[in-house]
């Protein structure tokens, strides 16, 4: 049966990338993108430029509205409520049935709620509406308690002090992000909070109380943080409900292969909502980063068309806080390199790049603070399986451009 109708559920960067890739691969049948949030936009600016007010809604959209009509993509601002594979259709929340030969689920993830008494009063940040609400709350002088000092929590605290609010970051792990960027850079980044006026509190909330407008985040160590607004940045939960309701295999993410195929051959999935099942049956860690979402959307587009998915190299992410640009490629998690070692490049005594080397000398990962060429060199070294000279990696005068040649 020829493939004539594809429906993509979710207009995040994974769903959008799949739609774009389908057209690039020459698919010319019907293509519908369900995007309950309206015109698809990019999320990373929500905790950066958009939150600070330096970028507006127009600036962060993925492409202008005209693009969808030009590429024959029907943009429908509705949610899917059920998959009806046997009828070859998807049911929308309004009750309408949309026929589809194949479906791509790109439903993303939602912020994990703070599971303590009063925890639902905490704001979270995932959508533009969330960012608008947070922006209003981050008024000059407002006291903000941010629970979770990971990537998003730290970005929010960083934006809060720029906007003139007072921020306290609460996290039991000091420093956080060691597996993501290595210990040296994690410590440097942690130290920047105090330099920029963000207080840190090493504990976990046990309760949020609110008596007469006086909100207190009570911590396990017996202390309390007084706040006008509480934000939770404690991770995300993959949005698998639609998939599970339809009987698709899921385990902390909709299970997919490298081409996005789920346990139902007519249904594919991509992005933050998914988790890769390797050919040997083991499950990979779920990714929560932008580039991985783009790539899996592209791979699923190939899968939807019955074509081989492209192979991708080491994963990469970035984050911006306190005026610095943090990036990492591959892994810095020493638990993944039993006999390996970490090499650090210092510039004037400040760690600027960290490298994880395998026992055989191959590069497994690189993280940097404000050293973009190094992470780009590292990506090529990793993807080409080169064995770099550790002395050159740590030498601040060694030009990254030369290392990957």
């Amino acid at each position, binding site marked *: 049966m020829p493939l004539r109708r594809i429906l993509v559920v979710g207009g995040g960067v994974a769903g959008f990338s799949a739609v774009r890739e389908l057209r690039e691969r020459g698919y010319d049948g019907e293509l519908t993108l369900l995007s309950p949030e309206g015109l698809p936009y990019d999320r990373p600016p929500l905790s950066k430029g958009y939150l600070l007010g330096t970028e507006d809604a127009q600036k962060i959209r993925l492409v*202008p509205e005209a*693009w969808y009509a030009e590429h024959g993509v029907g943009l429908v601002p509705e949610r899917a409520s059920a998959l009806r594979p046997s009828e070859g259709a998807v049911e929308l929340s309004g009750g309408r049935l949309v026929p589809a030969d194949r479906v791509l689920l790109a439903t993303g993830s939602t912020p994990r709620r703070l599971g303590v008494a009063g925890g639902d009063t905490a704001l979270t940040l995932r959508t533009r509406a969330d960012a608008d609400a947070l922006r209003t709350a981050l008024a000059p002088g407002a006291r903000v308690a941010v629970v979770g000092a990971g990537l998003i929590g730290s970005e929010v605290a960083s934006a809060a002090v720029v906007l003139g609010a007072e921020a306290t970051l609460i996290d039991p792990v000091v420093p956080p992000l060691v597996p993501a960027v290595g210990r040296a850079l994690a410590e440097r980044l942690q130290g920047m909070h105090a330099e920029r006026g963000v207080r840190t509190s090493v504990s976990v909330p046990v309760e949020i109380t609110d008596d007469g407008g006086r909100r207190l985040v009570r911590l396990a160590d017996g202390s309390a943080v007084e706040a006008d607004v509480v934000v939770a940045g404690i991770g995300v939960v993959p949005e698998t409900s639609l998939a599970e309701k339809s009987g698709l295999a899921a385990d902390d993410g909709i299970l997919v292969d490298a081409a996005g195929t789920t346990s139902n051959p007519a249904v594919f999935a991509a992005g933050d909502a998914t988790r890769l099942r390797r050919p040997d049956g083991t499950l990979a860690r779920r990714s929560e980063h932008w*580039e991985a979402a783009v790539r899996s959307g592209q791979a699923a587009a190939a899968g939807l068309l019955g074509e081989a998915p492209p192979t991708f190299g080491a994963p*990469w992410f*970035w984050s911006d806080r306190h005026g610095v640009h943090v990036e990492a490629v591959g892994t810095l998690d020493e638990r993944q390199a039993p006999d390996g070692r970490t090499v650090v490049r210092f510039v004037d005594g400040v760690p600027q790049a960290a490298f994880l080397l395998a026992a055989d000398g191959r590069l497994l990962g690189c993280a940097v603070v404000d050293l*973009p*060429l190094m992470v*780009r060199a590292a990506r090529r070294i990793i993807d080409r399986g080169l064995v770099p000279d550790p002395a050159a990696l740590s030498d601040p005068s060694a030009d990254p451009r030369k290392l990957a040649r």
Partner: protein
Amino acid sequence: MSDGIDVGSPEEIEEGTARIVEPEESGFDEPIAVFHTETGCFFALNDICTHEEASLAEGWIEGETVECPLHSSSFDLRSGKVLGLPATEDARTHRVEVEDGRIVLYPGRDAEQAVRPSGPSAG
């Protein structure tokens, strides 16, 4: 259409790097990056990435592409065409020639193989 301006000798821009020509020097209203590729060619694009504020001259130059140092969108140096997200708008090209052993930049004049540097070309 402006006249060409001399931006130096080919040796002054090392292969795999770029030089920024500021508006004061070029008369063009935005900074222009003149790239020297490892294939030995010269190309010029508006220096500021079409996505956010990053200098493409500080990007990774490989073959005939440059990868933005901030969020890694790549641009085709010959045409300015954007090759991947998050940027979706092509970069503006400028013509560069090597004339009598000097690099000559024609600010505001499209490169021969340029795509139209207008709206988005996401697809």
